[in-house]
């Protein structure tokens, strides 16, 4: 499987802090790659650096054969990269509809795709004209993801999408992500919920202290308790 996204020796500094310290990994095309690691390992910084929201001080980021490391975020997005940040970043003063209209940069909202999204997140249809700032945390998370997928994307960067979601909504989200993957989209996702990571992920990259410390198949990690314990320090029986 060829890599849709390749990151080679990427360093990122934020102020005087050296966050990414030579990150190397790839995200195979058409698969979902999970980026795991403890808090502060550099997962969110990796996504923001790929997105162009923070500039890599060194290294290469390739989307297919296109270098991203010197591009502004808007140019990265125009190459077909969708981003759903951890903070959700929905526009509070805009309605649900207006948030999605902005997500559809190429043109008007596609009714068929919208119906597909509503199938996963019916709350968005219910609160279509409501102010996004008045939605619950989980609904804002749904809106953030819906906005990232309201148009077809080549690569989706999703940061902790299940944070704050009710279990029923998490199941919808898993179904949604698997359907998106089935359309051939490459997904790079940061996730703390191992159950979600196991059900959605094909590949896994594990970060620690700003570096990748493990690359492999998600299924292998999920099946190997001792590996989980060594890499994540988790007793995953508790997460089943």
């Amino acid at each position, binding site marked *: 499987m060829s890599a849709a996204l390749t990151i080679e020796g990427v360093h990122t500094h934020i102020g005087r802090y050296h966050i990414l310290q030579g990150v190397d990994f790839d995200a195979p095309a058409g698969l979902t790659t999970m980026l795991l690691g403890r808090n502060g390992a550099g997962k969110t910084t990796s996504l923001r650096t790929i*997105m162009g*929201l923070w500039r890599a001080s060194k290294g290469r980021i390739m989307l297919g054969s296109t270098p991203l490391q010197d591009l*502004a*975020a*808007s140019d990265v*997005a*125009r190459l077909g990269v969708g*981003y759903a*940040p951890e903070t959700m*970043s929905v*526009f*509070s*003063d*805009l*309605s649900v509809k*207006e948030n999605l*209209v*902005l*997500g559809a*940069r190429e043109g008007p909202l596609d009714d068929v795709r919208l119906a597909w999204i509503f199938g996963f997140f019916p709350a968005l249809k*219910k*609160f279509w*004209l*409501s*102010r996004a*700032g*008045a*939605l619950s945390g989980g609904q804002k998370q749904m809106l953030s993801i819906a*906005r990232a997928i309201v148009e077809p994307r080549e690569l989706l960067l999703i940061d902790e999408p299940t944070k704050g979601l009710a279990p029923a909504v998490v199941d919808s989200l898993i179904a949604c992500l698997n359907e998106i993957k089935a359309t051939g989209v490459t997904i790079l996702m940061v996730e703390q919920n191992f159950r979600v990571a196991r059900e959605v992920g094909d590949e896994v990259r594990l970060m620690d202290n700003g570096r990748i410390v493990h690359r492999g198949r998600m299924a292998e990690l999920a099946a190997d308790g001792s590996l989980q314990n060594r890499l994540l320090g988790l007793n995953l029986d508790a997460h089943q």
Partner: protein
Amino acid sequence: MSALDVGQALLRRRPEILPALTPLFVAFAAAPFIGSFSTFVTLTAAGLAMGMMIFTMASGLTLVFGMMDVLNFGHGAFIALGGYAASLVLLPLANWSSADSFSLNLAVFLLAAIAASLICGAFGWVFERLIVKPVYGQHLKQILATIGGAIIAEQLLYAVFSPAQIPVTLPKTFEGSFVFGEAAIEKFRVLATLVGFAVFLSEMLILNRTKIGLLIRAGVENREMVEALGYRVDRLFVAVFMAGSALAGLGGAVMALYRGQVHASMGSEFLVLCFIVIIIGGLGSVGGSFVASILVALIANYAGFLAPKLALVSNILAMVAVLLWRPRGLYPVSGR
């Protein structure tokens, strides 16, 4: 209505009505002290017109401050430049202004307004590229750079147009007053009010009914996310800055006609008032600035009549009172 419908209705965007009514409350509160109804009408109409002129000048600053997070102390220079640009049209076309023809009078006014907007918009582009762009995100440097830019612009206006005041003649149709009983309302004030309302309605229409407006509103709240959606915010910023400068120019043109003269320092005279208005209204809120402009102008007019010494500080007192009531202004914008 079911409980769910009620919940949804509550979630729908519904602007608070109370802040919008503050000018009315002020008017009702002042009326008994003014005593004479005709004086009250005259003061209120004059206040409304002044409010609309202030709004026209301040709305550009609101957009620039709200969307771009830029403290543009050079905004006043565009107000003065607008006045001069209007005079460049009005002086050669003085015979249109003095003609007994409504259409010629209106045409010369519109030409002056358009020239002021276009010239200020163009100079706004230069100002943004040369002075504002290098200091994005650095408030202290923005203050220093834009004050420096304003001083240079003011001195250039003196050099080009001379330090003397330049008289600006009002088109004949707009001279004089409409008289209703004992109340007199200057015709030009009616025109200035209409211009202010037109600017307000246009801005609200653009902000609420177009994708550009959506982008501006979203950019006010979270510029980074707008970029991450693929929009080139830097280009939008330039356009917003040019629009803000054009509005300052339009406001300057109307103010120059109202005062009958233009002077390079008129911009700095109104700059503080513009800042007071956008703070009272809520940073980045066009609707808030609209209400605040009327509020400030009415209070200044009533105070000027009832307690002239108080009028000197009425704007500051109004700002303190509003901020004690609503610390983020009448209509705060999320993320500000």
